[in-house]
């Protein structure tokens, strides 16, 4: 599975991710990346621990298959700056994953 590339495999991979999340994969939903320093720490972990490892990416980034609200803001993928609306894809270089608009992760940023 070419999880870091875009294209016809997106739908298949998205479904696979959805199954993992629905199956109870425990991810690091909290704490959210509230400051730039926390963002940098999580990004550094993605680079060192999760390259090419879909499961670790989902865990470290704190993916959920529903929208999480934090600090009074809903944080769905669809409003995140890394989300490509038409491709339904997260373009954060350390993730590069097909996602759903209503999912969420703790690296959300607007």
């Amino acid at each position: 599975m070419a999880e870091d590339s875009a294209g016809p495999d997106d739908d298949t991979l998205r479904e696979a991710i959805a199954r993992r999340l629905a199956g109870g994969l425990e991810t690091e939903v909290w704490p959210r990346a509230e400051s730039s320093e926390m963002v940098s720490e999580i990004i550094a972990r993605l680079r060192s621990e999760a390259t090419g490892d879909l499961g670790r990416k989902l865990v470290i980034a704190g993916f959920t298959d529903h929208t999480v609200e934090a600090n009074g803001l809903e944080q769905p993928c669809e409003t995140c700056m890394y989300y490509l609306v038409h491709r339904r894809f997260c373009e954060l270089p350390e993730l590069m994953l097909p996602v759903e608009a209503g999912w969420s992760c703790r690296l959300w940023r607007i």
Partner: protein
Amino acid sequence: MANLLWLQGGACSGNTMSFLNAEEPSACDLVTDFGINVLWQPSLGLELGEDVKAILKKCISGEIPLDIFVFEGTVIDAPNGTGEWNRFCGRPMREWVKELSEAAQFVVAIGDCATWGGIPATAPNPSDSKGLQFLKREKGGALGAGFTSKAGLPVINIPGCPAHPDWVTQILVAVATGRAGDLTLDEFQRPKTFFSSFTQTGCTRNMHFAYKVSSTAFGQRKGCLFYDLGCRGPMTHSPCNRILWNRVSSKTRAGMPCLGCTEPEFPFFDLAPGTVFKTQTMMGVPKDLPAGVDKKGYVKLTAAAKGAAPAWAEEDIFVV
């Protein structure tokens, strides 16, 4: 004929290099077409040592009428308030600066260092550097908050790291040809003709800004550099995308974030690790929002704009 004297304090000479690249008008045009007599300039002056000193003394005494005094670089006060770390022609540069500023009809600060301290004044500011009339946002600087030159104007600040060459030559021409009265200055004494609009004004990435599509790497043609790569274009007053660099481009057009170098806080966040080329966020929202936009409005606008983004806005189209 207008006599111009140009000195450098705590500087890298970058503004002199920029000035020599001016095109509209060029540095040569200043002399041949606009009657500017360059008494001395660090990279152009022929005199050395005592001969330079003699020019400076004649300017101060009034024997040579000094119409325009240009200063590039910081005024250095270290060590211990003596200014001895920057000596020039036999004494601290800051003493020349004060006396020449009092003798001049107009005083023009070129570049961030001379305007508000720039990189040398970054904390902990070991050289005790300041600009001519500002230290960062604080008014005062080397000449004091109340300083005005003989013509009645405060220091005319042309910031930038470096300043665009044509900003420099066009302001010098305005002053030399008796049109200084046409200049209006903003709260930081920058000519409004250049510093009222934003770096973002004229940016070729504005459509990506509008639809909230982000660049994720330097040099990408797709996306806006504000959202992730620390671009300060929406908050920075400069005409960098109206008066192009080398007539062809700008930082943002080349895929490089604006560093906000025409603002007093430059370099931002005191260059702390992780702050350069990275948009600083708090709870997922940029700490510094486009000028005049509040957090609530930004969040609403972003959600709406992203939902309305057309497919082409997410593609790597040719935008230069």
